């Protein structure tokens, strides 16, 4: 241990004199580390993307969905069961204790047309003006569809910035009519961008009053979901219990009976999805780790070859005063340098690949300092783990036998 750089020099000399071999061995580690980093990077980017998507529509909200959804994923809300306006009115009347604001809504996919231009959009409709707070909407130009519009069954709409861009380009959309299905809605505003990171592109949306939506377009009373907020983020659980009690009463469900609605909060959604993507990422990374394992075995193999080739050198070094641990350290340094080079190369490749992949999938940046540290530390560990056995074997060689080795 006395002359650390001495060992590094010996290792570098030896690696340099077998350039092709070193390169090929390193390549195994490079591929392993790069694939792990890429998968972890893309996985992390996906998780961040999901998280920010949730943040863009209020993560403290609770959701009440029609139908019993426990234990299964039964498709999008509103497909098999729905709420009615009457139920929403009752809900709003009774929910005063922990629930602060509430709105209900329905949505649909439609073609929106203005003059010659058209675009496939998602129509979101709400039963009350509190959606503006609940969904954190802000008007960029004009105004948001409000309570008054809803009370008066007005055929008005606030459109998303992307809808405005496509249908109106440079024209001022305010006051113009767009045709959705076969109904004309007058544009009263454009809302501020909700950002591109979301499940659906939330800027490709138009907002209309539910009253007008169901009277003119849907032709029946079919509410897909209720969104509500608790009076305080701390009270989310209480608010959920309150909503559960009220809906049980409205739908006359006795204790022990199956519920015909379900209540959850955004946090739960987020957690579940994060868990799924997390497990998936780890699963993929574990597969990638196998390639690193194979790379590590390659290092071990080459270390054995190197030690066999240099048996005489080991004997000589011992006769010149090298202790067992000097020999151990010499070969360990060599294997660690190989895996560290592989780790650094793999890091560069992995960061590059995950950046490109994330860009292609339009996810956020995926360079994470902790993955880089992980890669370097991991490659050093690989060097240690796969280097220790050959190095130990080398250090235990009997100097006389080693010197006689031909």
């Amino acid at each position, binding site marked *: 241990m*006395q*002359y650390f750089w*001495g060992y590094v020099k010996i290792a570098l*000399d*030896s690696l340099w*004199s077998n350039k092709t071999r070193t390169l090929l061995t390193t390549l195994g580690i490079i591929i392993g580390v790069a694939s792990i980093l890429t998968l972890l990077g893309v996985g992390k980017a996906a998780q961040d993307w999901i998280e920010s998507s949730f943040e863009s529509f209020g993560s403290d909200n609770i959701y009440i969905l029609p139908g019993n959804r426990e234990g299964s994923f039964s498709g999008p809300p509103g497909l098999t069961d729905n709420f009615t306006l009457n139920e929403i009115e009752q809900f709003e009347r009774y929910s005063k204790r922990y629930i602060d604001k509430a709105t209900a809504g329905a949505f649909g996919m439609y073609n929106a047309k203005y003059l010659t231009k058209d675009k496939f959009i998602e129509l979101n409709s709400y039963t009350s003006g509190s959606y503006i707070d609940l969904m954190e909407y802000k008007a960029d130009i004009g105004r948001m569809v409000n309570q008054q519009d809803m009370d008066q069954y007005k055929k008005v709409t606030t459109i998303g910035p992307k809808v405005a861009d496509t249908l109106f380009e440079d024209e001022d959309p305010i006051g113009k009519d767009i045709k959705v299905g076969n109904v004309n809605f007058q544009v009263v505003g454009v809302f501020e961008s909700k950002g591109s990171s979301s499940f659906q592109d939330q800027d490709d949306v138009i907002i209309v009053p539910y009253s007008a939506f169901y009277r003119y377009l849907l032709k029946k009373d079919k509410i897909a979901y209720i969104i509500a907020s608790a009076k305080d983020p701390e009270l989310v659980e209480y608010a959920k219990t309150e909503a559960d009690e009220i809906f049980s009463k409205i739908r006359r469900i006795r204790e022990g009976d199956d519920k015909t609605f379900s209540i959850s909060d955004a946090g739960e959604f987020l957690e579940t999805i994060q868990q799924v993507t997390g497990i998936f990422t780890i699963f993929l990374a574990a597969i990638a780790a196998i390639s690193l394992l194979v790379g590590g075995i390659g290092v071990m193999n080459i270390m054995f070859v190197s030690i066999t080739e240099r048996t*005489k*050198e080991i*004997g*000589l*070094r*011992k*006769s*010149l*005063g*090298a*202790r*067992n*641990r*000097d020999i151990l350290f010499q070969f360990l340094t060599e294997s660690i340098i190989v895996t560290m080079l592989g780790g650094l190369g793999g890091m560069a490749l992995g960061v590059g690949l995950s950046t490109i992949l994330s860009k292609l999938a339009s996810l956020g940046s995926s360079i994470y300092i902790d993955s880089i540290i992980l890669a370097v530390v991991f490659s050093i560990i690989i060097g240690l783990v796969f280097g220790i056995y050959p190095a130990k074997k080398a250090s235990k060689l009997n*100097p*006389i036998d080693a*010197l006689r080795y031909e």
Partner: protein
Amino acid sequence: MKLIELQDLKKTYITGDTSYEALKGIDLIVRKGDFISIMGPSGSGKSTMLHILGCLDVPTEGKYLLDGIDIRKLDDDELSGIRNERIGFVFQAFNLLPKISVLDNVMLPFLYSHVSKKEWKHRAIDVLKKVGLEDKLKNKPNQLSGGQVQRVAIARSLVMDPSIILADEPTGNLDTKTGGQVMEIFETIHDEGKTIVIITHENHIAKYANETVYLKDGLIEDRFINKKEMDLEKIK
């Protein structure tokens, strides 16, 4: 002054059920400044004896004192320290590392020593001067002749300023003339006060030493003083 003292030294190798007694009780004293050659037929135990003297192997029985240190009481690391500081090896097969320079080869023992790095280079150059190779510092061993390579090896054995030089058939891979030149270097070193023990099976090489010890079947059979001047005349 006694440098080495062997008392009833025995070495038995055990492989499986069979045991082989390589040394059967050696008593030998090497004084500081001695130049001793060990001769004997193969299987006589001369290599075993040199390995034990060089602390590469440990005796099974008996006593080995080097500079007053009881070698049998030392552990592996301490033996490595003794090899590093007190013993200089010269091998028949030279054993230089082929991929590093002459200078680096000579500096190799420093890597395992407490010698300050500042001293490495000038001490290495000093001993290379002694063997007449100060102009070959940057050369790789394969650019040198056999005799030059063995001179580098001698320089390496001297660089730690050891108590004793142990040479195992140092001229065995060299022709007579080059072998003679190498032996002359040993003579010079001896004249400067170094203690040297060499193994050889060639009479004319053995006679460079002041004293020859004959081994046979693991025992010292004979020991006599060489009449050096006369023998040298013969060779020339």
